[in-house]
C-alpha cells in the first residue's frame, strides 16, 4: 500500500483535483493506495507518507524532514503533460514499493 500526500497552498482546489486523478491513475495501474490531502505549509513536517505530490511553489528538489520524495503535480491541474505525469507516477510508485 503506497501512501501519498497531495498538497497545495490552501489544501482545497488543486489538492482535490490532483487527489482525484492520482486515485484514478493508481486504480488503473492496480496499485493499492491511500491518498490524503494536505497544505503546502505542512509538507516539510509530514512523516507518515511514501510520496508527496505538490501543486504550488515548493522546491521539488528539496525533501522534507522524513526524507520523503516530493514531485510536482501541476500537470494534473493544467492537463499539459498529464499522460507523462501518469507514467512517471506509476514508475515512481513501483520504485518506492520495490524498495520497501
Amino acid at each position: 500500500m503506497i501512501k501519498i500526500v497531495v498538497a497545495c497552498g490552501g489544501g482545497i482546489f488543486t489538492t482535490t483535483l490532483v487527489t482525484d486523478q492520482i486515485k484514478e491513475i493508481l486504480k488503473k495501474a492496480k496499485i493499492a493506495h491511500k491518498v490524503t490531502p494536505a497544505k503546502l505549509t505542512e509538507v516539510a513536517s509530514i512523516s507518515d507518507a511514501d510520496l508527496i505530490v505538490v501543486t504550488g511553489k515548493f522546491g521539488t528538489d528539496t525533501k522534507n524532514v522524513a526524507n520523503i520524495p516530493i514531485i510536482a503535480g501541476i500537470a494534473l491541474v493544467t492537463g499539459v503533460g498529464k499522460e507523462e505525469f501518469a507514467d512517471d507516477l506509476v514508475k515512481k510508485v513501483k520504485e518506492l514499493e520495490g524498495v520497501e
Partner: protein
Amino acid sequence: MSNIRLRSDEDLILLHVKADDRRQVIEALGRRVEAKGYINERFIPRLLEREEAFPTGIETAYPIAIPHIGGDCTQPFLAVAVLDEPVMFGDMGGVKSELAVRLVFLFGITAPEDQVQVLKNFMAAFTMREHLESLLGIESEIAGLELLETLLGDGFEAVYR
C-alpha cells in the same frame, strides 16, 4: 445537493474590469460576494494573504487565476472578473514567476470532496483555448453566466434575475 452547488448570478460576473493589480481585482470580486452574504469579513483578507504566499495563477493559452481559501464561506460560489488589461498573478506551478492574467475566478468551496466534479469540469473547460476566448469576448453578464452554466454542469447553479 443544492447547498454544495457553486452559485453565481449576474452580479458575480464582472466585465471590463479595470484594475492596477491583483489585489484590486480580488477585492472587487470579494465586495460583490460579501454583499450577497456568502462570505464573512475575514474571507478576503485571508484570501489576499494566501495569494501572496501561495499564488493561484495557472498557465493556460490565456493565463487564469483561481483565488480561493477554505472556511469563512457559507454558500459555495463562483465569481468571475474579465479584465480589459491584464494584472500579474504569481504562477502556481512556479515555472514562471508571474503570469499576465485577464480572467480571474474567485471560488467559494465548502466541501471539496463533494465539489470535485465541478472543479474538474472547470479545469477541463478553462484550459481549452476556445472557451477562454469565448469568456474573454463575452458581451454581457448574462451571456457569461450562461457560458459557465453550459461548461460546468450540475455542480454549478446559475441564478437569473
